[in-house]
Structures are given as structure tokens and as C-alpha cells.
């Protein structure tokens, strides 16, 4: 079933919202009243409902199947969290209404901070960053501010090869030079390599731990010590924090700043690409530089500090990341998730996530290949494409064939350090039965590939709303919005 674009079926005189025309009044628009039409077609409510329901039916979702995107943490999104985020007292309050009318909201922010600080063993938290990459920016800005406060001018940031693209992009955005740290054969960072790169120009290292190969950086404490000894800071990318909640505190590993993707670790829904939320926790060394606004716990309760005028001695915020106070809607969902799990449940979730990844590893290790041999992984397991050698099937083909079996593909070609990488993160939400079926399906696909059934893979997906899409064509002459098939003047004739 094809679904037209709204611009092809909507009409300019149709509306799905009933409003009464205001009684006559004297407009105060000056000379800036709109004179041209906007060109926004409308749909009646039943048409709009059907249009978007049918669009939704072309989507894959965690609610409809396993979504093993490594590093993306697609796990169950409890509907309790959606419900509480919509309580009037959270969803229907304005960021600038008097603080006396939002004390519960400030308490909730304080509660979120309390949990994040305890889970990470850090000192302070900035809640306002709007997503993971924004949190990285926040953390790196704090580092830059701290260095400036010391009167230094360090401009190099070390980033391992296996890092998410956001890491170097973030560092570059605020003027740091990125120096790449080569990986060891197993994808982890070698402390010796780090030490070799350290200098008085080095501001920080950005490290993901567990890393993007699904491995815990064994030498993280040694690396942290070296970094600190060189007068630099340790930024940790917290995208994979979900593997170690309740198992290790990053503060004790020597981390100075880490963002936490509430939409990964604490399961606020990804929503097809956001919104997320990326609070950042800071060590003692960086705590003072957290941006405005922040929640301070005073003697008589939590206080929302919005501007410089309200600062206490020692507080040196580096500035402001966003208008208002951050992703309140996500804060509520995350707190609901945390309260539901409790300390015990959070730890169990980490354990089950790691258990599931290793179970997938165990189920596939004899038929798929791992870049650094069969070893225990954390919450995601990394395969490479060696097992496809000689079959004529590529990593991409293999992934697309999974679609025909009813699965979303895993993360492909990332991390970059591994050729033909396939990164599988099942998450703790999957039952054993679900994993058994997934493993059996992948084993079957491997057998088909090795049996020479290449067409099945090259042609995949065949049972999806679309076959493979021509991305080159899309990029060559970008069509980024709907264009009327012919000029209005002609159509009107």
C-alpha cells in the first residue's frame, strides 16, 4: 500500500482543527502583515489519522521486534514513563512561570541528579544538554573553561580510532585539534600509546568505556592516571554506560566528565531520532564549571540557579548550553525508570544486558568471526566479515537479508577500526526465547550465504515496504522538499 505525501492529498481550504474566527479587531502588525500565501495543505482529522497511521506501519520498532543496533541501546520503553511525563504538573508547566509554582519540578531535577551522581561516583551534574553529542560539547566546554581558568592554552584532544564520530566533531567544534590514538588489535586503547602522545598541549582524552567494540577498557585507571599526571582531563563518552550501571563507578575510574544518554541507558524513547537528553556528570576537578542553569541543594531544599546573579562563591559556570532548563520530559521518564528499577534492578539490567550479548556471542561464535577472537564482551558483541569471505555476500547484503527475516539489522561498518564490522547489542529486554530465535535465524543466514545463495542477499530486502534505496541519486541532486509537479500558474489554467 502506497501512501501519498500530504501535499498531494491535502487542500488549502480543509482543516482538521475547528476554531472560531475572532470578532473584528484592529490588528497591530504594522506593515508586516503577511501578504503571500504559505502553501500549507490541510487534512481533516480522519484523513490525518489514517495518513500517519499508515506511515507508521512502514516503520520497524522495538515494540515490534528485536532491534540489535550496537551502541544504540534499543530496549523496552515502559509506557508508565510516557504516562507520568504527561501529568499536568510536569507536561503542562512553563519554564519561566514563577519558581514558587514549580517546586515539584525542581525537586524532580534534584532527584535525577542525585541518582546520576550516586551511580557514577561523581561530584556534580549538568542536566541541560539536549542529547549525547550536546553533552559531549558541554563536557568539553567545561574542560576548556577549566584549562582557561588555569591560565593555560592546551589545544589537543586525544580520541581513539574506535570513537563515535561525535567525539572528534565535538572537539573540533570548539577549536581543539584532534589527535587519533591507535587501537590495540582487540580494539582497546593501549596506555603506552596514550602516554606517547601526551604533552603540555594535550587538554583531554575522549574515551568510550565500555568501548565501541563492546569491551571494557581494562587499563582505564592507568590511562586516567597518565592523563591527570600530564595536566589533562579525562572525558568519558557515556553511550555505553548501560553496561556498567551498578557494576562500576566512573568516578572511581578517574573520569572527569561523562555524558549520559538518558535515551539509551534509561530508556527514554528514541522517537525515530530524538528527542534525547544528555546530562553530564563532573568530577571534583570540573564541578565548578558546570553551565547554567543547575540545581543546587541548599539547606532548605533544591534551588534552580538560572543566572550569574544567583551564584555562590566558587561556582564558575562556563556559560549556557540552551534556552530554559533542559529536557524535562526526558528527566521525568528517566526518574520513573530509575525508581522502577531501583539500585537492584539497575544492576540486574546491566548484568542481563551483558549476559544477553555474551549469549548471542556463544550462539554465533562457531559460524561468524570475531575480530579479536572469542572473548567475553560487555553489552554488545562485535563480529567482522571474515566469515563471509569468498561468499560474494557483503556485510551490507547480510544485514539487509536480516530484514527479510523480520529483524532490524545490527550496526554495520562501525566501529571503523574493524573491517566489515557488525555490532550486535541485544539489550536486557530480550528474553531467552527471543535470543534463541535470533541466533537460529542468523545461523540459517550464514548457512545460506556459505551455500552460495548470493541472490537472496543481493536482492534483500524483498519483504519490506521498499527495496534498497538509491542513496547516491538522493545526494547527487538533493530533493529535500516536495515540489509541485508544475508551476501553480499553469496548473490553475
Amino acid at each position, binding site marked *: 500500500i*502506497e501512501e501519498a505525501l500530504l501535499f498531494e492529498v*491535502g487542500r488549502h481550504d480543509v482543516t482538521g482543527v475547528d476554531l472560531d474566527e475572532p470578532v473584528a479587531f484592529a490588528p497591530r502588525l504594522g506593515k508586516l502583515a503577511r501578504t503571500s500565501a504559505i502553501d500549507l495543505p490541510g487534512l481533516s482529522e480522519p484523513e490525518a489519522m489514517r495518513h500517519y497511521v499508515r506511515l507508521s506501519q512502514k516503520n520497524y*520498532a522495538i515494540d515490534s521486534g528485536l532491534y540489535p543496533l550496537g551502541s544504540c541501546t534499543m530496549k523496552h520503553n515502559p509506557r508508565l514513563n510516557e504516562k507520568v511525563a504527561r501529568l499536568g504538573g510536569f507536561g503542562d508547566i512553563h519554564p*519561566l512561570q514563577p519558581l514558587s509554582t514549580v517546586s515539584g519540578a525542581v525537586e524532580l531535577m534534584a532527584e535525577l541528579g542525585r541518582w546520576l551522581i550516586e551511580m557514577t561516583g561523581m561530584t556534580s551534574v549538568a542536566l541541560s544538554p539536549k542529547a549525547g553529542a550536546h553533552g559531549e560539547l558541554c563536557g568539553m566546554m567545561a574542560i576548556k573553561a577549566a584549562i582557561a581558568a588555569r591560565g593555560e592554552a592546551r589545544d589537543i584532544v586525544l580520541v581513539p580510532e574506535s570513537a563515535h564520530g561525535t567525539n572528534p566533531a565535538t572537539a573540533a567544534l570548539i577549536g581543539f585539534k584532534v589527535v587519533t590514538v591507535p587501537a590495540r588489535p582487540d580494539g582497546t586503547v593501549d596506555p603506552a600509546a596514550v602516554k606517547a602522545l601526551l604533552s603540555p598541549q594535550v587538554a583531554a582524552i575522549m574515551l568510550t568505556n565500555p568501548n565501541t567494540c563492546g569491551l571494557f577498557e581494562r587499563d582505564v585507571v592507568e590511562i586516567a592516571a597518565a592523563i591527570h599526571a600530564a595536566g589533562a582531563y579525562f572525558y568519558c563518552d557515556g553511550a555505553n554506560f548501560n553496561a556498567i550501571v551498578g557494576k562500576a563507578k566512573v568516578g572511581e*575510574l578517574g573520569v572527569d566528565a561523562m555524558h549520559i544518554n538518558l535515551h539509551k541507558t534509561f530508556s527514554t524513547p528514541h522517537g525515530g531520532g530524538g528527542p534525547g537528553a544528555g546530562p553530564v556528570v563532573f568530577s571534583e576537578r570540573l564541578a565548578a564549571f558546570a553551565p547554567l542553569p543547575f540545581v543546587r541543594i541548599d539547606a532548605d531544599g533544591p534551588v534552580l540557579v538560572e543566572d550569574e546573579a544567583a551564584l555562590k562563591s566558587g561556582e564558575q559556570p562556563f556559560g549556557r548550553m540552551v534556552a530554559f532548563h533542559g529536557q524535562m520530559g526526558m528527566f521525568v521518564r528517566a526518574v520513573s525508570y530509575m525508581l522502577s528499577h531501583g539500585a537492584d534492578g539497575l544492576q540486574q*539490567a546491566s548484568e542481563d544486558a551483558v*549476559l544477553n550479548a555474551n549469549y548471542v556471542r556463544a550462539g554465533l561464535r562457531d559460524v561468524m568471526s570475531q575480530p579479536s577472537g572469542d572473548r567475553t564482551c560487555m553489552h554488545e558483541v562485535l563480529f567482522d566479515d571474515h566469515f563471509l569471505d569468498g561468499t560474494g555476500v557483503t556485510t551490507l547484503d547480510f544485514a539487509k537479508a536480516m530484514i527479510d527475516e523480520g529483524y532490524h539489522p545490527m550496526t554495520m561498518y562501525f566501529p571503523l577500526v574493524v573491517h566489515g564490522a557488525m555490532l550486535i547489542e541485544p539489550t536486557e529486554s530480550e528474553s531467552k526465547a527471543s535470543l534463541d530465535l535470533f541466533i537460529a535465524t542468523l545461523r540459517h543466514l550464514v548457512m545460506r550465504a556459505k551455500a552460495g545463495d548470493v541472490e537472496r542477499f543481493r536482492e534483500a530486502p524483498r519483504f519490506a515496504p521498499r527495496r534498497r534505496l538509491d542513496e547516491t541519486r538522493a545526494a547527487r541532486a538533493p530533493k529535500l522538499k516536495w515540489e509541485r509537479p508544475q508551476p501553480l500558474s499553469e496548473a490553475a489554467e
Partner: protein
Amino acid sequence: MRYLPHSEADRAAMLATIGVGSIDDLFSDIPANLRVHGLDLPHAAGELSVERTLGRLAAKNVPASTVPFFVGAGAYKHHVPATVDHLIQRSEFLTSYTPYQPEITQGTLQYLFEFQTQVAHLTGMEVANASMYDGSTATAEAVLMAHRVTRRKKAVLSGGLHPHYRAVVETTSAMASDLVEALPADPDAAEDILARIDAETSCVVVQSPSFYGHLIDLAPIAARAHEVGALLIAVVTEVVSLGLVESPGAQGADIVVGEGQSIGNALSFGGPYVGLFAARAKHVRQMPGRLCGETVDAEGRRGFVLTLSTREQHIRRDKATSNICTNSGLCALAFTIHMTLLGEAGLTRLARINHANAVKLAESLGELPGVTLLNDSFFNEFTLRLPDDAASVVEALAAKGILGGVPVSRLEPGNAALANLLLVASTEMNTDEDRAAFVAALKEVLA
């Protein structure tokens, strides 16, 4: 724990399959001395208990819908049809990821394409991206983009720009060692920004309606900027205004950024919102953020994909146009559905209602003794000069159960000249009774 499917028997069987003796063996890479054994946090709680805990916190706040409500300053209380919230909660939208696999995410991709088209039409621009975090970060990204386009480094910010937006631009620019010339707060729309534009200028950032509610004629600013090779970045924090006010594109803007919260999205204490970002087509390869484009599949059928990703961090890394990854997909969906329901007929009528309500309110409040309306022109928000400190007045009004606007000092603390200024917004939510109650209460408070 209700979210964890395994029984203890499952766990034991799985450990056996893996070939380890205990779950701890899977965490052996974590140095033993650093393993945590228990957090100082409460234990798991059932759904009823969590609902009650959070319900108690929520009950301490005053929801906008329950009182006469006139607070704006960059976030607006509008009525969102029930259809919008229903649709965005559909599993297939809510629990899907960024559409990296277009064959099975055409739903997300098509609505992003519709969103981009709607934003482009609204702003009068040629292209729009698939959303930013919010209006303030979109503005900061627009400045960075202007620097890339012009290869200059100095932004000029109007004194009518939302103070938080100004702060975000200043913070980013300071960190990137770019220059910012921010004009002083301009409650009377009297600034001479043309005089500040010179050959060093990368971009001029002008908000209209301004933070103080004034409609700003962008055309002369655009003309001056273009003369010297700079870009005009127009900022719109109340997108409903575009139903009634000439589009920034028609006035010559090069980049239009805005806050889309008003359409489809709840107030939610400031987030999540949805940043709008539109530009001239010639600059598209310097844009930040995701772009969705049309193409065809292997059978020639129309389909949509994320495109021009060579601008982006996951491909370009430290050469990317932005570090943005996750954006505001679901908020963009809410925007698109609400805008689809409105259509041109609904949006323009909604805008007229907002404007009518604000005009009526401004006229009533402006007649109170000692109160001065600063605006000649405005859309649904305006600035009053009160005879007293505005922050105290707002607290006094709140005590009477009326949320009567934002004291400018909340965002511009420490500036005595602004201490008595009150920003007042009025939308379709306000009834005649709300207005009457506000006027009466303000009169009492000022008496």
C-alpha cells in the same frame, strides 16, 4: 523486575551455554577493587508506587491549563489536538531509531520530508533540515554555519534576541574563539543595528517578533547585510506568528531558525522542544543536522533516505558541519501532524485568534494607571512598563492564582532599567474571563 524477562532458570541456562560459572565472570575486565556492590539508592518499586511518588511531585506544580495563563518569552501554551499525542505514541514512531535502514523506516522518513517542506514553506525558505534540539541551539548552529559560508567570524546580535539565545550563541562562540557583538537589550525596538554591520560581519541575528514582542522589518537589515557580504539570520520563537506575519524568507533572510514548540508540543518546563532550521538552497551543504531526501528504490518506487550525510559527524568526524546526532524527531512529528491538521486555513485563523486576544489584552492592561505598553506592533506578546518591580508583581499575581507573564529581569537580571518590564503573552487558550481576571488582579496588585 517487570522489565526483565529472564527467570533465574533462564539465567543459569544461558551462563552454562556461554561457558562461564557466574555473571561476575562476564565482568572480569573491571578491576576487582573497582567493582561496585550496591548503590546507595532505593530498591525496585512497582508501578503504583512510582506513579504515586511522581504524582506527589507533579502536584506541587501549577499546570498552565488550570489557571489564567499569560507566560511566553519563547515557549507558548497552545491547544494541541488529542490526535497528535495519540499518533506520536504509536509504537512504530515512538520506539523506532534514527532511520538508518530506510527500507523499514519509510514512515519516519516520509514525515521528516513533510516536516522539511512545511518548515520551508512557513519560513519562506528553499530548504529546511529534519530538526534541531530547540530554537536556541539552532541559532548557535546558524551562526556557525554563517561563519563557514562567509569565512568570517563575527556575529552581530540584535538586542531583541531572546537573552537565553544570546547566551547560547555567546557561549559557543567564546569556546570556538569566534567574535560576538551583542547589542544591549532593546525593549523599545529603537536600536540602530544597521550601523553595526561591517565588512567583518559574518551574520546579523535578528528575532521577529522580538523578545519584547516587536515585529521587526527585516528587509533593510537583509539589504545592508548583503551589501557587505554578511548573512541575515532570522529567529522566530513563536512559530504561530508566521501565520499572520510576512515570512523572513520574503524579507530577505538567508537562514531562518526558530522554536517549533508552539505547534504540537507541550510546554514541559522547557523541553523537549523542536528547533527549526531553514536556509537558501545554495548553502545546503553547509547546513547542520539531518536532511531527508527523495529518491527511488531498486524497483523505481519513490522512497526517502537520509542524505548529504557527508556533512555529518558519523562520516566526516572532526570535519563535520555540526556534532549533532540525535535531534528532535518525535517533536518534529508532533509539529508536522498538528500543522497538517491545521493546514493553511487553520494556522492563519489560529494566528488571528492569538493576535486578537493579545490586542484586546494589551489595550485593557495598557489603560491601567501607571502601566505603559511599549509596543507599537506585536503578535501575541508585548511588553509593559509597570510602576513597580515586575518580579514582585508576578509573584503577587501568582499568589492570586494568575500566571501573569515573565518579568524581563528573570532573563536580564541586574539591569535596573529593565526591572519594571513585564512580558505578557496571550494565546487561543485565554478566555474573556481569564483576561478580565488578569486585568482586575493587576489593578489590585498595583493599587
